[in-house]
């Protein structure tokens, strides 16, 4: 039993996390979804991320849900993201359900909750498809085309660049604590509580070295960005044009949109007939 829990913890390590995030970003760049034009996908997302909120029709919602489920599968999203999605959706409705019962609601409260679940799930999966399925650079180019501030799209690609390094640094600082620290024994319940408090304290304290080390890094980064013309690019319309000229809507994109439209229309038809 002890062995098992240790194994689980081992699996859920920083290393694993880093790997999953990178895998999610770059490991699936050869899928159908990743090959689509980011602008088309974002437009697609705007539909499936917003419309389900305002529709109460069960068949229609079910249709949308099935569609985004298929696209998520096509995007070959990393396991961790799907897991988070599942936990998120479950905890949202599960808790709401209990709270409603507790405050004197009855079966009539359950139906709207089910609809709500379907809405939440559809919207999350649509965002998972777009934001996990696209590689971050294409995503940020797409966002830029829609007029998002340049700093956001820079932040996205920079974040992916920095994440592996930051995590390694954080991991090393935590390992320093693990090697040199002396956590309380956690056999009894009281010990477990103390152990938890100890862990939390360590994580908080480890941000002291992490902040200083990251500060050192970001100074070089920002100086290098200056040398490499980042600030000039932000002010120069020509750069945006050059960057966006790489985007191209292909027949595949249109086909994807048309298929989605067909499926949605079918769902609407069902909704109308039933």
């Amino acid at each position, binding site marked *: 039993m002890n062995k098992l829990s240790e194994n689980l913890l*081992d699996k859920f390590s920083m*290393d*694993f996390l880093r*790997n999953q995030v*990178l*895998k999610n970003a*770059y*490991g699936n760049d050869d899928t159908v979804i990743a090959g689509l034009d980011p602008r088309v996908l974002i437009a697609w997302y705007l539909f499936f991320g917003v419309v389900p909120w305002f529709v109460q029709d069960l068949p229609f919602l079910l249709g949308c849900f099935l569609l985004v489920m298929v696209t998520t599968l096509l995007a070959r999203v990393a396991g961790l993201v799907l897991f988070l999605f599942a936990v998120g959706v479950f905890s949202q409705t599960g808790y709401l359900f209990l709270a409603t019962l507790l405050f004197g609601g009855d079966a009539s409260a359950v139906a709207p909750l089910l609809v709500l679940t379907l809405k939440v799930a559809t919207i999350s999966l649509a965002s998972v498809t777009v934001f996990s399925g696209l590689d*971050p*650079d294409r995503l940020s180019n797409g966002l830029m085309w829609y007029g998002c501030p340049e700093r956001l799209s820079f932040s996205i*690609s*920079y974040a*992916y*660049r920095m994440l*592996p*390094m930051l995590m390694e*640094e954080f991991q*090393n*600082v935590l*390992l*320093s*604590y*693990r*090697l*040199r*620290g*002396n*956590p309380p024994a956690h056999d009894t319940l009281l010990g477990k509580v103390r152990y938890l408090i100890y862990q939390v304290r360590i994580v908080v*304290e*480890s941000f*002291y*070295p992490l902040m*200083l*080390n990251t500060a*050192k*890094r*970001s100074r*070089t*980064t920002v*100086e*290098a*960005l*200056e*040398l*490499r*013309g*980042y*600030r*000039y*690019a932000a002010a*120069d319309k*020509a*750069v945006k044009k*050059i*960057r966006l000229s790489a985007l191209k809507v292909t027949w595949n994109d249109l086909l994807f949109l048309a298929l989605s439209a067909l499926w949605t229309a079918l769902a609407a038809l069902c909704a109308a007939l039933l």
Partner: protein
Amino acid sequence: MNAVEIDSLTYTYPGASQPTLNGISLRIEQGDFLAVVGNNGCGKSTLCKVLNGLIPHFITGQFEGAVRVEGQDTLESDVGALARKVGYVYQDFENQIVRPTVLDDASYACLNYALPDYRERGREALRQCGLEGREEEYVWQLSGGQTHLLALAGAVSLRPDVLILDEPIAQLDPMHADRIYEVLRALNEEQGKTIIVIEHHTEYIADYCKHVLLMKDGQVQWLLPTREALQRVEELEACNIFPPQVTQAAHRLRAMGVLPAGAPLPTTVEEGKRAFAALKLHPQGAAPAAERAGETAVSLKQVSLSYRSVKGEPRTIFDGLDLDIRRGERVALIGSNGAGKSTLMKLMVGLLKPKSGTVSLFGANIGEKRAEDLSRQISLVYQNPEEMFIKDSVRADIAYAMQVRGVPDWETRTDALLERFRLTGLQDRDGRLLSGGQMRRGSLAIGVALEPGILLLDEPTANLDIATRREILGVLEDMQDLIQTAVIATHDMQLVCQWAQRIIVLCGGKVVADGSRDEIFARPELAGQVGIRPPEIFTMARALNPDARCYTIDAFTRCFGEA
């Protein structure tokens, strides 16, 4: 024409009381390959940041005098315009890379300056820097040396006339270091670029640079052709710069009267062959072979380990590795970047768990021990000392492990350690704000605080200048009574030769050689295979006489010094 002209430049950082650069006047010719040398903190990096306009446009402060790069006054220009004239590669180059894929990063600057052919320029720069065929790779797939080449390519892509590199080979093994310098030489000779390097590996200066600029206390001492510059042994040593070992040896032999008084000193092995041609080898008694007694301290049996990769199959680091380290040994672990040295150390302290096989410590499997208990038996000092500092003062860091374990009289022991590592005066400063050498001493003190039986050091001399490296070597010698068994992973062959009793050569996750220094360095085929290189003085002695085994300058002068 001059690439750089500086007239009476004085610069003070904001908030500093003393100027960092003080009355500098300087001319650097176009097409020069210049090495800037000097003590730590003599203003080398500051001078380079003046050239690309970061000072005073980006880093404020008090700036007097005039700096012209390619005829352009830096005060009247902006960083963007200057960046196309001057390329800069930082010492911590990995922070300079901001894009996830190789080609993207190489062409990033060109894109930002709205050059329509940015992709072609990026490709061309990658070709020039020897990264052809890696355009689509992600930056974290590159090795340290390749990352450095990528940072260089990012600078080259703007086609600047001047390239500045701050300590380009500090973290690289000799093979990667050679590649960087070969690329620089090609850029210099074929493209006519002016190249400025801050460098303290004088062997590389002798081989590649045309001129040397010595700086001291924010002032220029002199700028001389390389051969002439390296002759000035005393002046250089006064600034903690150590000329190539061949030059140092010749200097000593000249002082001993073995070489004629006026003779020019050789700076490379080739020159040494001529200069030392008349000398005869007087074999010294071989050093007594170290006895390999003692129980097994660390034992790896059939250890396999692989890292998860972003795409495809996991990357295998070790496959069935067997290794024993006995109590009392001083082991050097060598091999090229990425051979698995750091991974092996992490396995030994239990930070990584093997996929299969066992790692045991004094006969007990470490998988069954708690990490916190292990630390009394084995301790690891990271390559990057900053990550060892987790508290807000050196004192607190050294005391931490003893304090939380309730070691009796931990306070007096902390005092003793501070004294021993000469940190008493610095004990309240934050570790990461100290100088390179002080930081290393601090991390070593932290590593030995619990008096572990086994001490593992990952690259203890990386990023240090030669003088500080000597100092750390002294500290290591001094620690012998504290630590029974020590393992060092390093590229620093002088350290290996002077300190280690046993050398283990790793290549591709396998032990390809294991033995004393004589056994290892007598096999030249190993050098080609794994990218290690014996110290220059060893090569020099072997070039004179294949039977020579001289690992230090002392040994060399002893062997060849008698008339």
